[in-house]
């Protein structure tokens, strides 16, 4: 094809972003230029949270678990930037340590629900028939309960603790992936490349997981982000209700619960800062999820 760059009378003005990308190799730039503002914001915030979580492993201003490092209910100051709670633990240190729990638990749970849900959904979507009916009826039963209520019920039954909370979250999140994967796989099951894959010697598993699934991952990956935001909320809710992690764990929901007595008496900081942290993290996940689903939207592909 003869392609030439032609000057026309009024070229559209180059945006700042475009000029910024002028220094980056073309292919990368083309990819980056598709990232929207919400992508940058969401990803930036998340990287910030991950940084804090990592940092808290090595350093926090004070020991997050040690009561009495300061006076009870000290208001924010240079020594205690976010103040202290009733027991005199440093809020900033606890908040930093809490990032590990809220982020870590939600990511592990999301990874688990993604893997299990996608696996079962692919089987259900590709094979159909009895397997599909059985899997889908089970999913419908689970989804008949509101997810948060369901999570509370199970945690109450099996008891608190990090592993149990992860298990519950993975379980509650899994049906959405399953449905999504099932739909995507089903719609591609009769594509010609699936038939072609059979003729070159693949069995059904090979076709489903090697050929069809990789083409379905976009929307599933975009959903992980939305799911993670939900997971953070559930962790914090369980913590707030005192049925998630043990009450002295520096988890954000726990911290809000611990500070709720102070709200009436003027110690607003104890509950406010964990709340802001939760808001920031769910916001980041939602922004990212929104941007990713735009990015993976087949209608936007050329």
């Amino acid at each position, binding site marked *: 094809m*003869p392609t030439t760059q*032609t000057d026309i009378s009024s070229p559209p003005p180059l945006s700042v972003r475009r000029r910024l990308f002028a220094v980056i190799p073309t292919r990368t730039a083309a990819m980056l230029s598709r990232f929207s503002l919400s992508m940058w914001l969401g990803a930036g915030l998340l990287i910030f949270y991950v940084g804090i979580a990592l940092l808290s492993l090595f350093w926090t201003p004070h020991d997050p678990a040690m009561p009495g490092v300061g006076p009870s209910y000290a208001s924010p100051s240079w020594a205690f930037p976010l103040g202290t709670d009733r027991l005199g633990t440093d809020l900033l240190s606890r908040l930093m340590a809490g990032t590990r729990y809220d982020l870590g638990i939600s990511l592990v749970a999301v990874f688990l629900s993604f893997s299990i849900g996608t696996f079962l959904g692919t089987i259900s979507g590709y094979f159909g028939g009895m397997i599909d009916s059985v899997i889908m009826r089970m999913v419908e039963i689970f989804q008949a309960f509101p997810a948060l209520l369901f999570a509370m019920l199970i945690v109450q039954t099996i008891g608190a603790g990090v592993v149990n909370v992860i298990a519950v979250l993975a379980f509650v999140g899994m049906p959405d992936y399953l449905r999504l994967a099932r739909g995507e796989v089903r719609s591609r099951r009769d594509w010609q490349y699936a038939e072609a894959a059979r003729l070159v010697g693949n069995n059904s598993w090979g076709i489903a997981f090697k050929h069809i699934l990789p083409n379905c991952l976009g929307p599933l990956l975009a959903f992980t982000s939305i799911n993670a935001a939900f997971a953070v909320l559930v962790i914090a809710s369980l913590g707030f209700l005192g049925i998630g992690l043990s009450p002295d764990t520096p988890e954000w929901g726990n911290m809000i619960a611990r500070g709720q007595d102070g709200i009436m008496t003027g110690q607003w900081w104890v509950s406010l800062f964990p709340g802001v942290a939760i808001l920031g993290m769910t916001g980041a996940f939602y922004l990212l999820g929104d941007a990713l689903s735009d990015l993976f939207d087949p209608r936007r592909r050329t």
Partner: protein
Amino acid sequence: MTDPILKISSFSGGFAKETGDVTQILYDVSYALERGKLTAVVGETGSGKSVTALSVLGLHPPSFRHISGSICFDGIDLTSVDARELHKLRGSRISMVFQDARAALNPVFTIGRQLADTYRLHHGGSRRAAMEHAIEALRRVHIPEPESRAKQYPHEFSGGMAQRAMIAMAALICTPDLLILDEPTTGLDVTTQAEIMDLVLGLARERALTVCLITHDLGVVAETCDHVVVMNRGHVVETGSTEQIFTAPQNDYTQRLLAASQLSEAAE
């Protein structure tokens, strides 16, 4: 040569990329459509035949940029008129039939309703009179039982029937001077293709319509058209009467295309 109804002169254009650069796809395209004649614009994928024709109606994709040249329709330069004026020309003086008729028809209205609405848009009158015109138009394009067919929805029509309805709309309900057909028979069965071309030919003769047939299929052209414009990679490589193009093609590409269409060994 009499004054042609449409004259495209040195028309160049391209597609704007995200970076703002323009990739040129049309290079000094020039051809003219003579009044009352059937002209075929022939080319393969990427030849620019469709984009040129869509530009006539201002229906080119939004990323298309006009670089230079003009499209002159009956004394009006279409590249300089504003959108409203172009809109007025569309349908009333120039109309177009697309490849996929079922996609071009609105799935939620009956065929008769769509034809009748279009009729009222251009000619006014009562609903009832418009519907009578719609049914008459369907009859004229040989749709059996037009009264009951008019009450059906596009998905109840086969591809060939839908294309007939589109032709009824473009050539009979609208009463244009120029009818542009963009690959009207591609994707249809051979027997249906032949019937659609017969229909177009009949209507064109009867109403002295100027027809521009955009196609990749030289086979359809040989029997039906008066003139042929051959396009390749954004250039017009040869124009001439159908006889001349088929019996004594001058351009190298035309010769190759013809050989390939006839499946003669020279094509290999």
